[in-house]
């Protein structure tokens, strides 16, 4: 079967610093994959390469068998590749409702309409409402984003990615900085995603990662250290050494 997302010998260096080192990784459709590694391992950089924010120094990226290495970020999003950001990338002055409606309009390909109002398609409103409710943002959907508490903003970060109905979803530490309860709710939402959605999850919370993922890749110093099912990763002495060492001061 064609992988949903495939990286072939992906390398990125900033000057002399190699941040992504010959990474080859392949995600099957519907796979729940986790990417872990100590701070500075190059996880976010990998997401930036996949989404086209950064251009790789060498290597290739394929989405559902299609070469996207050269494609601009907005085209990759249109092909069904969505992401969330480790540091919130939201719209401070827009309300959650406006932001989500905007993402839905974009996905439906009607964001260039300048002659009609925002409410012409009832289906867009219904969809926005359902999504915001699903993420528990229904009651604050009319407040400007910048006035929302951090936990809510974090949820909106995910809502925006889900509004694209992605086929491949890259989550860069979605639970970073949210409370334990919020984190649990968040993972309930993620676990309830349609099974055909391929998910690459980056997180430092080992409990969550091991419960969520079918396969785990450990990235250290920009290179893949080891890859395998959760039990194997948990038992691997190299992982313990590298990762648990980093976690104790992270």
């Amino acid at each position, binding site marked *: 079967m064609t992988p949903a997302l495939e990286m072939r010998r992906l390398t990125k260096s900033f000057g002399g610093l190699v941040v992504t080192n010959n990474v080859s990784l392949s995600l099957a459709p519907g796979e729940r994959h986790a990417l872990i590694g100590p701070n500075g391992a190059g996880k976010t950089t990998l997401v930036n390469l996949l989404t086209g924010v950064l251009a790789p120094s060498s290597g290739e990226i394929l989405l559902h068998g299609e070469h996207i290495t050269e494609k601009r970020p907005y085209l990759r999003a249109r092909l069904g590749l969505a992401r969330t950001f480790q540091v919130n990338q939201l719209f401070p002055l827009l309300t959650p409702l406006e932001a989500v409606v905007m993402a839905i309009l974009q996905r439906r390909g009607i964001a260039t*309409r300048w002659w009609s109002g925002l409410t012409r398609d009832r289906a867009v409103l219904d969809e926005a409402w359902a999504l915001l409710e699903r993420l528990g943002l229904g009651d604050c959907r009319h407040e400007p984003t910048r006035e929302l508490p951090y936990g809510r903003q974090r949820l909106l970060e995910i809502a925006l990615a889900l509004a694209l109905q992605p086929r491949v979803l890259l989550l860069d530490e979605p639970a970073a900085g949210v409370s334990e309860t919020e984190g649990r709710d968040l993972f309930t939402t993620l676990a309830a995603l349609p099974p055909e959605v391929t998910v690459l999850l980056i997180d430092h919370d080992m409990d969550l990662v091991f419960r969520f993922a079918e396969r785990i890749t450990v990235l250290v110093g920009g290179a893949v250290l080891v890859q395998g099912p959760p039990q194997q990763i948990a038992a691997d002495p190299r992982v313990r050494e590298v990762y648990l060492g980093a976690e104790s001061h992270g």
Partner: protein
Amino acid sequence: MIVEAKSAAPPTEDERRLRAPWRSVEIAFWVLAAAAYLLLPHQLPLLAQAAIGGLFALSVDLLLGIAGVMSLGHAAFFGIGGYVAGLLAQSGWGEPLSGLVAAGLVAGGCGFLSSFLVLRGSDLTRLMVTLGISLLVMEAANRMTWLTGGSDGLQGIDVWPIFGVWEFDLYGRTAYVYALGVLFACFLLVRRVVHSPFGLTLRGIKGNPRRMSALGTPVGRRLVGVYTLAAALAGIAGALLTQTTQFVSLDVFGFDKSSEALLAVVLGGAGTLYGAIVGALMLMELETLLARITPEYWQFWIGIAFMAQALYARGGILGFTVRLWTRLRRGVAAPSRTAP
């Protein structure tokens, strides 16, 4: 059960907010503007100028306040529109409405072409490039004396009556009605655009261009669109000035023009549309007032007023008024809310 109740269709509140219906203050604003024709008969030439300045500022607000694109050279399009209307009228076609359309098309075309230069790079680069382009255009107009009349300006502009009926008169009556009518029509268009899917995308780009491209929006292309529209509107404003004053000179390209419109937008409240119009009017009144009191230092006092506004009335005059109004209302409403 609760889950089911929650997944019901969105309340009409969502629809109302996204639709942005006309508010009574907005209607009052336009009624008042129309009433000025009767209430201030001696001010009409000045008010016509204010309406033109308001339209130009509105085009800058669309660019800066809505899409977040900074420009120091928007007067280039104002000037191009002014000269297109002037040249048409001079060469024997003085029909005003088609003159406006021609000016809008040419200015919009120039906006479209230059947008590819302007929209690269950061805010600072944009400031420099827009300023550079406007200086180039002005210098080109200055050199092409055979076409533009050089520093003497364009002479012999004969504008026909509007619809072949209403002649431009010395008291500025026709000029005011004409300028206000065009301002209103353009305002309707801009308001429509701002509250459309395209307009929401522009506000998104202003807020976070990076996220917009992650959502699948070709940010550059959207900005080309809004830059073109803003240039066309500026061109129409320039044409209005030529037609109502029957004259056009190189001043229309000036850096003063660009900076005044920016000032009007910021003074009135960026991104509010009305702020641009109110700001242009206030700036004009302020200038005439200060010029009368201290003919030499009026620009100094404008600078002071501007700084005071930046320090104490962020969000512009409109933002300040809205805050004051909500505070007053909250003060009145608070006791009643505690009642069971």
